[in-house]
Each structure stands twice: as C-alpha cells, then as structure tokens.
C-alpha cells in the first residue's frame, strides 16, 4: 500500500526544544532512506546520536511518531545498548578500562574516586556538562594497565590521583 505519509511535523516540531530544523531534516532523511522500516531503528538512533551527541527525549518522540513505533519500544532499545545516551555528553570524556588486567591493577579504585570527586557514576555526566565518565571492556593496552582514555588519548598506568589531575587541567 502506498499512502503518502502525511507530514506530521506540525505535531513534533512544536515541542522540538533545542533541536534545529536542519538536524530534524537530516534525521528525516535517514528514516526515509530506510523507508521508515521498524527494523532500521538502531541505525536511525545511531545517526541521531552522532548528530546531537545524545538522544534527547524530543528526538525519540519524533522518531517514534515518524516510524510509527511506540515510545516504550524505542526506550527499551535505547537503554539496552550502553552506547546510547539520553543525557547530553560532557565536553570531556573519561573512559576507564575495566578489563581483567586493569581491574586487577585497581581500575575500580579509579572509578570510585571519580564518583567521590565528580559525584557521578559511569555512564553519567556532571551537571555542568564538563565531564562524562564511562567504563569499557579491555581496550588492548593490558601491559600498561590500568588504562584510561581521556578525550581519545590513552593514558597508561594510571592512579586515581593522576586521572583527577589530568581532568582538572581540562576546561
């Protein structure tokens, strides 16, 4: 059946908050490229997150409306994959490796200290949007354990104090 989908922008755009029309258009293009097929949801979410840095609720509601998917389903997918985030990412990302080698060498202490000092758990972002803390499985730097990636750069043989020092240097 080929009934043209009625543009329902009127519904969604009114509550789009901070999402610009250009971004919306891009999301629309991605959905259209997949013919709004429900099984393309992950790709659509992926692209949306790379455009916005995270998945705001408004964007999820918009995608649900256009792909005719219930919000409960979308939210299930978003929370299932750690990759997706519904809160904005901080300006700086700190990924603590929790692979076996790093864990043995005290990665957990780093995570605990970060929690004490920044008040956030892995996967969370500080309210001032300065830092996001993540954990990862082995990042392939076992010989230099414990390893931490800060803004893409691998730091080896870290201590909790050294990580905090690094982070403090970043604005």
């Amino acid at each position, binding site marked *: *059946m*080929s*009934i*043209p*989908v*009625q543009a*329902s922008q009127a*519904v969604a755009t009114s509550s789009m908050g901070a999402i610009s029309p250009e971004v919306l258009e891009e999301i629309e293009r991605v959905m259209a490229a997949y013919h709004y097929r429900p099984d393309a949801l992950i790709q659509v979410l992926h692209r949306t997150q790379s455009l916005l840095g995270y998945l705001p*609720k408004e964007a*999820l*509601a918009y995608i649900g*409306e256009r792909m*005719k998917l*219930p*919000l*409960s*389903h*979308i*939210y*299930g997918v978003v*929370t*299932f994959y750690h990759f997706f985030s*519904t809160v904005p990412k901080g300006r700086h990302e700190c990924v603590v490796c929790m692979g076996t080698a790093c864990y043995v060498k005290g990665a957990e202490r780093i995570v605990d200290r970060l929690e004490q000092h920044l008040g956030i758990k892995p996967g969370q972002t500080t309210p001032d949007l300065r830092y996001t803390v993540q954990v990862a499985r082995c990042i392939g730097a076992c010989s230099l354990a414990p390893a931490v990636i800060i803004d893409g750069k691998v730091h080896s043989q870290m201590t909790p104090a050294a990580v905090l020092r690094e982070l403090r240097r970043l604005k």
Partner: protein
Amino acid sequence: MSLEMVTLTINDEEVRAPRGSTILEVCRQKGIELPTLCHFDCLTPVGACRLCTVEVEGSRRNMSACTTPIAEGMKVRTNTPALREERRQILEMLFAERNHFCPVCPMSGQCELQALAYQHEIASVRYHYAFPKVPVDMSHPDIGLDQNRCILCTRCVRVCSELVGAQTLGVVHRGMHSLIAADLGVPLGESSCLSDGNCMQICPTGSLFDKRSAYRVRPEALRNAKPTICPECSVGCGFLVHSAGHILLRIDGDFDHPVNRGLLCKKGRFDLLDRNTLPNRVPQVRRNGRWEEASWEEAVAEAARGVRRVAERYGPEAFGAWVAPTMTTEAFRQLHHFVREVVGGSFVDTLRGEEWRSWRRSLERLEAMGLPVPRIPTIPEIDTATVHVIVGGDPVISHPVLGMASLRAAANRKATVFVIHPDRTTLARATGESLFPYDGEERTLLRAAVQIALRAGKMTEELAEAIDGVTEKLDLETLEDTVGVPVEQVIGMVNLLFAPETQAVWFLNLTDDHIRSLLPDLMLFAAVASEGPAWIVPLTSGNNLLGAVEAGCVADSMAAPRLRAALLSLPEWRGITPQWLEGLRETEFLVLHGEDLPALRNLADVWLPALPWAYQGGTRTNYSGRAQYAAPILFTEKAWTDEEIFRRLEAAYLAEPDR
C-alpha cells in the same frame, strides 16, 4: 480442516496432537500438570521464566514447554527429580533477585509465584538475596507498580501491546537490571496508559496491583467473585465482581467470556466501583408545591393516581414515557406493558432512539436496492479484518474494548486503520493513517471517495449517484484546501477498500448527529466497496439500546406527541437537552425515575430513585445483538429494582379505582 497429527510420548505415555501445538498445550490438554509463570494463554509465548522446563530425549538441554513445538516421535518428561530441582532453583532465584516480602504484599494469597513456591515446598532460599534498590511507582490513581515484586515475565508488556494495543509498557535496560517502564521512562500516571488495568490483572505477582482493593480485605474475601455483564457501554463485556457486604472491592475481566475474552476498560474495571453507594435516597413526592420524602408504596401510589387523573381527563393517549437506553430488557418490557397496554398511553420512546432509527432506515435502503445487508462482526471476527475505518467518535473512549481491537490491529500491523475525525483522537494518534477532515466536511470527503471509485471504474454511475446525491462533480485537485485531506490519502484508502483481498470493518459513531445524517450514504458506500456483506459496527449510546428496541420502547418515528402526563425513566442518564425539555412543558403530571436531575426538579411530581447498577439484574443486548443475562451482584430490601418499580406501579394503577 484436517489437522496433521503427530505422535509423541509424554512421561512414557503415547499421545497424539495436532502438528504445530507446543508441548505445553498438549500437556494442558491431556491434564498433565506443568508449572508456568511467563506463559499466558492469549499472549505470544516468550519462554522467559523457564519454569515449564521439560526433558526432551536426545536434546542436550532442557526445553521450555511453552515455546517448543511438538515433533513426531518426541519423548518428553515433565516431572523427573532433576526437573523438580531445576524448577525449585528457578523459583528460589526469582525470590533472591528482588525484594519479596509476602506478609506485606497486597497480592499475598493470590500470587502465582507464592503459590508455586508452596507447591515446590520451598521453605528457604539457598541464594544470597540481592536486595536491589528498585523503583516503586504510585503515580497512577488506580494501578500500583512496585517492581520489588516483579519477576520480569513480561506478561504486562505483552498484554499492553498485543491485546490492549496501547504499547505503553516496555522492558528497559537488560539482564538483572531490567525494569518495566512506561513510554520514555515516565511515571505510569503521566504516561500514554489507558488505565484499563489489564496489565494489572494479568501480573502474576503483586508487582502491578490494584490500589483500590489492596489491603482492604483478607485475600480469602477475593475468592468468590460473581460473574456478570458490564453495564457501561454496548460492548457488553463479561466480568467478575468481588464484593463484601454492600461494598464492591474489585472487578476482574472474565477470560472465559466470548465477547471480551478477559479485557476490560477503565470504565468497567474502575469507574463502576465508584458508582455503587447504596443510595440513602428515598422516593419523594411533591405535596402542595413542596418535596416530601415518602415510602416506596406511597410514592408509587401517588404516581399511579396522577397518571389515572390525567388519563381520565384527557384520555389515555395523553400519557407516555421516555426511557434512557440504560435499563435491562425486562425493565423495558415491564414499563412498556404498563404504559401502552395497561394505561393505554400513546407513546414510549428512548432518548437517543434516533440512533436506532437511522440505522434501520439505512438497512432498509440497502435492502430495497438489492444489496447485501451488512452484518455486525464479533470481536474475534474484527481481529481478522485487514482494514478498519473509524468514522467520527473515539471508540477507545466510548466503547473501549472495541477500540482496543483497532488499537492492537494498528500496533501489531495486522490491519490498516483509518480514523476519520477532525481531532487527533486516541486512536488517530496511535494509527498514523488518519484522515483529519475539517469539522463538518465528512460529506465532502465521502463524495470525493465516491468520485475516485467511480473514475477508477470500481463503482457504477448509478450507485455513485445514489450515494452522492448531486451530479455536480468535485474538484479533486483542491480537495486538500476544501476538506483538509490530501487527495492521495483518499485514493490510497479507496484502493485498499475496493481491493479484492480486503476485509474491511467500519465503526460508525451513531451518537454524532452529523455522522448519523451521513449514515445511509456511508453504509451504502461500505456495502458497495465490500465483496460480501459489509462489516459495520454501530457505536451507540447506552448499553441496551437494542433491548429497548426489542421491548418496543423505541418509537417508529421521532414525532413526540403532546403529553399531559409522562413517566421519565432515566437511570444512569444525564444527557438531556433543552429542546427535549421544551416538549415536556405541557405536562401536568410527571414521574421521574432515575437520577435526581436538577433540570427536571421543578417539573416533576414524583421522584423514584434508581438503584445502582450492581443491584439491577436482567438482560442486556450488546452492540452485535447478543442478549446476555447480567446477574445482580448485591441485594437490598430497602429499595426496588427498575423492573420491580414498574411492576409495582402497574399494580398500584390497577388497584386505584377500588380505593
């Protein structure tokens, strides 16, 4: 239909069952007990709890009986010591993973997890309790969600999406961190939830629970529910009512009832509980211009005297009755007998009787044209339709269990659902295939559809003219400007409706004056588009309009005679209009039965209060013509049922001359 049979053995016994059945189905059929938790008969099996685990010879691991189809020569064992141990472990793990404190759980005594633990003689749990911190959501007025008791069976999620079609509930996060959540993780009370509570009824534990009955009585009090029929709308769902004394505690859907198969809506499950206070309202009569309380006998005698006075002065034709489409058929019959046969009154009509008359006129027209007469499908039939067309109204609100059939069809992409309504109704929001004509432009939309069908050669000139009525053609190019619907959308709908493999079902809102004026043409269009008899569901007011018809309480035409005395029997009814009131101005004597309607206070001479629904027993005929007996739930000596009132009124009237 011949089913291919498969032979297998279960616990060394040879059994034969149709191919495609699951091991669980065969076991249940043969009376072999097998514990289950996540399984629920009308839901898609998911194999989440693994409690139904069985041994299958030749298979390395045990299989969940609820998801495994049978095969030729299969050898199944359901009750070995190893299996019993495995099940015990599963149950113990379920207890250890969340925080189950049975003594303070409102479902204790009715919980399936608890019952299974007893059955498996679990006295202690070998695992460490995880004591996780789990959210409790009390935001919904009627439904509590305490996930300390959730076993993640997803029964609630499946009922919400597969049967209700609301798709509000989902599972978020994964593994042992999984949780049930609404929409994008909002509190249930702020979500898209329809408040029908079907998830709550189907939850095997006390995770989703009924806030109203919780902690009010001992669980034993909730064991003897009485089956009856919901009096709230013309769907006529079957339900079970739990009560204690004169208090209604809880209403559960009846899974064995063929109309709703367990589903209920908010009105049937929750709202009815509020409307049950045994009225300490007593009859009143007006004496010397003042209202005075009276006994039932006095009030009825007063009513009979008034009617007789008028009948003697103006002739019996000056007496008549108006009823609401909300009483039992027995009450309608008794009233009709009294008014028309005993007194000889000229008139009985039902408020909203026009809904039936327009339906009947439309049927007669189709018959006269030699077209197949439409039929009213049952809900299981509606579930097989491939196209739904909902014209006007919002069945999710007015006839919710019918509306759910459309919701679930759209949600599970089983049918294309078109909603034609100026507003974004609940259903329109859910389906996305909606047509939003400007208010009052439904006729133009129908004309456009007719023209499109005509041009495509799907309809003859003659039929098109019969529907359209006017020969002057519409400009389809500008349709979107005049009607508000893009023409492509109408073309898509028409093509689909006329496609040979389509089975369409139409839901027509007869309570709307405008849709009713369109009814003959809409029904003709539906009949022409359909290969066999069209399937049409009339959405009407009240719960027993058809019973009123059967009892002769719907007049043939709307012409209201000038009455000098009238009986207004309007239980559970508030929808009276100023025009209708105007027609009562000439009455000298008025008996009001039902609500104490302020608009009628000054006109009435006798007021007979009606008992709440739970006290009224009798037959109600639902939308598809199914007459169902609704058993009374509660009894009282202090007041009379509707039927009893009319019987006593009749007796008092007949006794009158001797006094």
